[in-house]
């Protein structure tokens, strides 16, 4: 029997080996390499003669308004699409799961709201570019309807470019957030609501007192994954306008700046790496910080309770499938 157990645990290691090798070769080493390159003056041209320059790349970045602008833009674009995203998702989830309201065809609404998330971001950016360009359909419509006298250069306006990026990001992600939050709500034990209803609680009261507190783990998950994705925002702002985050660098995100340094005529790999490193550190610290902070703030007993309430989530999932 002892031998049997050894054999089994060995298979555990054998089966996870490809993952570990894949991670070391394609995940960890490139990350290490990015950190290492960020301390050098490497360009695409001088690969052999690159020098170790310490933190010079970072000093330059911190002195560069352009870099600060990239960071600010990224946070702005992310926060302004995430806030309405989570707000609308909570509202829709509350409506969809309210037994008294009996909203029809919930599965179909959700499926349609999620659709934009599956489409190619490159295509979506090109689509909104053509819809909003000078001779595009939006201009045609507002001129014809008499809202404006002359077509507008939408994509040359800072505010419009930003609003479009925010709208597209929101458009692509709110459906997914609805689905995730509803799965969280489905896992909350029904007897809590039954007890509240016996006590005469209203829908909004139950949502505020039962649903929201118990959704905390799901909300942290949505928040952190959205943040990690948002800090790496690239496709939409890059492809919507001039591939430089214009007009006036108003939608230039971290990753666009990193790409611009990489693709500059000299190919500043070292400088581009330092952008990646700083954003990596910022994102990881904030993401893991939120995780730690949010967990630590609840008392141990409460944490136990939450863990217990989370456990049914897993067994609940097949039922989510069955409901549709």
């Amino acid at each position: 029997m002892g031998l049997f157990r050894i054999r089994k645990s060995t298979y555990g290691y054998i089966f996870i080996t490809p993952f570990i090798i894949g991670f070391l070769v394609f995940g960890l080493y490139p990350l290490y390499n990015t950190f290492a390159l960020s301390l050098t003056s490497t360009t695409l041209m001088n690969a052999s003669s690159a020098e170790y320059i310490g933190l010079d790349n970072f000093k330059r970045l911190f002195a560069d308004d352009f870099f600060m602008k990239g960071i600010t833009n990224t946070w702005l674009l992310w926060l302004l699409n995430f806030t309405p995203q989570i707000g609308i998702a909570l509202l829709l989830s509350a409506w969809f799961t309210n037994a008294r309201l009996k909203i029809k065809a919930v599965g179909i609404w959700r499926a349609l709201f999620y659709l934009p998330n599956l489409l190619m971001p490159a295509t979506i950016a090109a689509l909104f570019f053509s819809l909003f360009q000078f001779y595009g359909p939006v201009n045609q419509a507002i001129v014809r309807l008499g809202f404006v006298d002359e077509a507008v250069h939408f994509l040359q306006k800072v505010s419009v470019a930003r609003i479009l990026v925010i709208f597209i990001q929101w458009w692509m992600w709110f459906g997914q957030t609805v689905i995730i939050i509803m799965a969280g709500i489905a896992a909350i034990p029904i007897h809590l609501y039954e007890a509240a209803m016996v006590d005469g609680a209203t829908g909004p009261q139950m949502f505020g007192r039962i649903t929201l507190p118990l959704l905390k783990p799901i909300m942290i998950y949505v928040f952190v994954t959205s943040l990690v994705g948002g800090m790496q925002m690239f496709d939409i702002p890059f492809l919507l306008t001039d591939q430089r985050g214009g007009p006036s660098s108003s939608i230039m995100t971290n990753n666009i700046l990193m790409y611009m340094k990489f693709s500059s005529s000299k190919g500043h790999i070292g400088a581009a790496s330092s952008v990646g490193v700083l954003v990596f550190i910022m994102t990881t610290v904030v993401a893991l910080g939120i995780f730690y902070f949010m967990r630590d703030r609840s008392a141990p007993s409460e944490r136990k309770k939450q863990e217990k309430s989370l456990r049914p989530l897993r067994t609940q999932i097949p039922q989510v499938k069955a409901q549709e």
Partner: protein
Amino acid sequence: MYDIPKLRRNLLRVFIYTVLVILLLLTIVPIWLLLVNATRSTTEIQQGISFLPSTHLVENYRILGSKGIDLIQGFSNSMFVAVASTIITVYFSFLTAYALVVYEFKGKEFFNNFVIVLVLIPTQLSIIGFYQYMSSLGLTDNYASLILPTIANAAGVFFGKQYFESMLIQDLIDAARIDGASEIGIFHRIMMPLAIPGAATFGIFAFVFSWNNFFNAFILISSFDKYTLPMLVQTLRGDVYRTEYGAIYVGLAITIVPILIVYALFSRYIVSGIAMGAVRE
């Protein structure tokens, strides 16, 4: 229902359905316009918005092909990368997940937590180090640099774990062991076939992710004949097509129609799969 008067509840319902319809229009109209414009001639498109399809699809497609962008090539490039990535990532994710569910071994708890942390790591930010490393191996401008990294997919392991945990598999494993099956044989011949619904659901996500992936391909692939679809879409904006709106819309439509078809067929599984990947401790 005694607590909300009927009238008030009905008014609320009207309000809710109005909001839902507005959100639905916001969601659908841009996509619908894209598909409709793919069938309209450039002249028609310039004359104004229409929500009704026209008859110029084939003509638009011909114009698109006449300007040097080979979307069929791009389509098959994207298909190759996406299919290969999907097979690799589903297989290795489920293999790893299976090991974590079925076997006991030292360091398993650490590995479990490590996988969860990995899901939260912003991987795109190490692209420059990845590029330089691939370049030193001679693997830039090679699909291997897009496909092989999918061996280690933390989200896939997470998904696979949830799936295997929801299956009652221990009895089957014991029975197969008594019959003398090897451990890897049990995984290949018994567990993977049983996990096909889960593997297919996760496979759809892996496929869509690879199909839509612009950033990595854009950095790593340089030969025009190796361009994937999102890279070709980006070139559609170039000068050659500046006034050929119909052709541009056809090009855009080609990138999303396969996804729309897959979604129409499997939306139920896709929607339930999102919740499955997300609900975690």
